[in-house]
């Protein structure tokens, strides 16, 4: 089930204004921009260069996760490194084998960089730049075979693409800058599409610089356009996430859970909400910034049974799990019966750090959803949250 493209693009436009796409489209580089706050960590923008490189249309890419470009020969350890860098909210660079729509693989230098909100230090986006790279050269018995470079005009006017006979693409502002470059052809094949996947491809300094420049350009655009909406972004995190704030890694993990739930901070006075799922916002009609930092009691109203509220309070006090049926109110003040399950969640220290509350609208309770009972669905959220909180608070980040 694909996330609605319209909503995805809308959130991007809200942050950067709808003028940003035009500006980004003017950049010649291959790059994608993802949003870790949306379930599935999807691509929210793909450059024209990128789409051309992979052979997909925009609609086939927006809303999907970057793993769709991986394939059987993609090094799994490298994929893991990218995953961990995302979790740790840091920039990284790696050579990776990706696949085009037609199934052909190609090596590329992948450089990734987080984009932080200036206001609260959260990661808003990840920018990923892809620079296709030359296959690793192989030595034959006679030494390296050389062949002359061939030029192909990509038709971009001032920005011409140099297409070498070994399929290395280089974008440059002027062909003259590069001068004459000799090209090294791999001995083992003449087939234009064949790639030696067995040995990792090292990117050259030129390619690394190109990637770095592209990242800078993209970030300049994003920073500039974020000023138009007032929701500023920046390349470095300027303020530390407070105790009540969850890191990107936990956000991404929790973002995969589709049900309505909140996480409250057990260690802060009055137990404020520190995470609210999309499902919760949809159920209650609130926006995220309207609920973060508040205690859940705002969901109760005039006809809410105080005994039930007391029951909840008691369970929390004794750090027990409980299930109740409580009358709650949406933002528009319509009420609904909330089949609510609450459970304490411990972090790696072994102590209770959060409470998770999972809501099911009683009306929807018995709807067919893959055969899992509503109780089981709630418990699975508890489990997923427990795993995420425990694992992601284990500490020391490694090199």
């Amino acid at each position, binding site marked *: 089930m694909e996330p609605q493209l319209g909503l995805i693009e809308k959130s991007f436009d809200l942050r950067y204004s709808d003028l940003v796409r035009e500006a980004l489209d003017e950049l010649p580089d291959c790059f994608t921009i993802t949003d870790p706050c949306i379930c599935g960590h999807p691509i929210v923008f793909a450059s024209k260069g990128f789409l051309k490189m992979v052979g997909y249309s925009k609609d086939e890419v927006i809303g999907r996760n970057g793993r769709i470009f991986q394939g*059987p020969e993609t090094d799994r350890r490298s994929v893991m490194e990218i995953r961990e860098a995302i979790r740790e909210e840091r920039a990284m660079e790696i050579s990776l084998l990706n696949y085009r729509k037609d199934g052909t693989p190609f090596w590329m230098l992948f450089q990734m960089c987080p984009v932080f909100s200036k206001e609260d230090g959260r990661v808003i986006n990840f920018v990923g730049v892809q620079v296709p790279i030359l296959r690793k050269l192989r030595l034959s018995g006679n030494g390296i075979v050389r062949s002359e470079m061939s030029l192909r005009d990509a038709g971009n006017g001032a920005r011409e693409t140099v297409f070498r006979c070994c399929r290395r693409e280089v974008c440059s502002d002027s062909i003259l800058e590069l001068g004459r470059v000799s090209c090294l052809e791999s001995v083992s094949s003449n087939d234009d599409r064949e790639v030696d996947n067995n040995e990792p491809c090292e990117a050259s300094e030129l390619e690394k610089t190109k990637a770095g420049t592209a990242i800078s350009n993209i970030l300049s655009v994003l920073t500039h356009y974020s000023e138009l909406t007032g929701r500023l972004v920046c390349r470095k995190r300027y303020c530390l996430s407070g105790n009540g704030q969850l890191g990107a890694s936990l956000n991404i*993990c929790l973002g995969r859970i589709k049900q309505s739930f909140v996480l409250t901070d057990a260690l802060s006075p009055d137990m404020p909400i520190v995470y609210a799922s999309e499902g919760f916002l949809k159920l209650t009609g609130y926006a995220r910034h309207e609920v973060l930092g508040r205690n859940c009691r705002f969901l109760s109203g005039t006809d809410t049974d105080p005994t039930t509220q007391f029951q909840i309070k008691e369970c929390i006090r004794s750090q027990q799990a409980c299930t109740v049926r409580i009358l709650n109110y949406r933002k528009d003040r319509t009420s609904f019966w909330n089949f609510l399950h609450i459970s304490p969640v411990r972090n790696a220290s072994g102590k209770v750090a959060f409470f998770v509350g999972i809501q099911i609208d009683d009306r929807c309770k018995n709807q067919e959803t893959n055969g*899992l*009972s509503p109780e089981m669905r709630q418990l699975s959220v508890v*489990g997923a949250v427990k795993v995420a909180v425990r694992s992601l608070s284990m500490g020391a980040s490694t090199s």
Partner: protein
Amino acid sequence: MILSIKRVPTVVSNYQKEEAEEGARHAIGCGRNCLRSCCLPGAKLPLYAFNKVGNVVGEKGSFDTENKKPPVNFLDSLLLGEWEDRMQRGLFRYDVTACETKVIPGEYGFIAQLNEGRHLKKRPTEFRVDKVLQPFDENKFNFTKVGQEEVLFQFDASEDNEVQFFPNEPIDTDKSPSVVAINVSPIEYGHVLLIPRILECLPQMIDRESFLLALYMAVEAGNPYFRLGYNSLGAFATINHLHFQAYYLATPFPIEKAPSKKITTTTGGVKISDILNYPVRGLVFEGGNTLEDLSNVVSDSCICLQENNIPYNVLIADCGKRIFLFPQCYAEKQALGEVSSELLDTQVNPAVWEISGHMVLKRKEDYEEASEENAWRLLAEVSLSKERLQEVKELIFEAICCNIEDEIVTPIMEDDSDVTPQSHEDMDALKGSQPAMVPA
């Protein structure tokens, strides 16, 4: 001389009894709601039926729309939900999330946990460690003796070409069900046991069908932090009834970070590599034109080790895309008195999780002082020497009739359909080499 060591076993079921006492009491009427003929008729469990067809090499939720996969990771939700349910019902001996845990600073990030309650404090039992293949013993504890409440669901292949879930399915004894049960002394959240064809009472040894089932579980769960592990007898398996273990830990295992160097690619497209720069030497298997190709190469390698009486551990990681195989010799060293007392005092038995980098420590001082150097030193004792591993590798490659392929680049297939193996003769040779099963 039979080599044996004294061990305090870990209790995996609430119904696990002293092995010495068990023989006498077995025949007496049950009342435990177990899985044997006394209680099983009429029993019902949820059944998750996975789709065998169309499981192409590729991650769940990826681009191939012809596969009818449920939008949410269903098995993941089922596992977590059922496990949490048992937690809330008090079926575990302790709350594992209340056990302090940390990543040890260092290059690899070994994971240490302080768990004082895991190992039952009782009189140790003798355990024979010099034979990888031992016949099933009905008198000892086995998984048909667990209470049904410890079993979470049945896990088998679907009869139709799609994933199916039946919340309340009678257990069909004629169809030899495989089940997933809780481990009441969990190492981590979600610690379960996958027991293939539980009623057949297979001894702890790998066969092609069972390994494939385990691999399907990893694929179906679709979560890179849900890993499966296997310990052979002699490599710290505690119960001689065929089972795999699995649990969730949302951080990379040290072994997953270790670099590897390709040795060869089989005709079925399975890449076999040496593990580099890691205290325990071993092999890693990746790729494969189909899941079965990958599964069979690994299980044939395990079968080869079993037949040569070499204890080993297996880790299935990365949603079934990477499989690590570690032949080991620690138990033998221990029985021969060749392990330093300092290491023995930690009472860490290096089974698959420890080898992968997840250490459960019983003593506070070991936990406080846990370091990458200590972990490395312990695990280095487990590893085969370079020379011995080379011998073992030769045995394995001979057994799997490997075609050395690293000079030739595998050409990219033009069409999108499943890639067929290049050489049918090799495939037949591989099938023909399936060894006869050791009688239970």
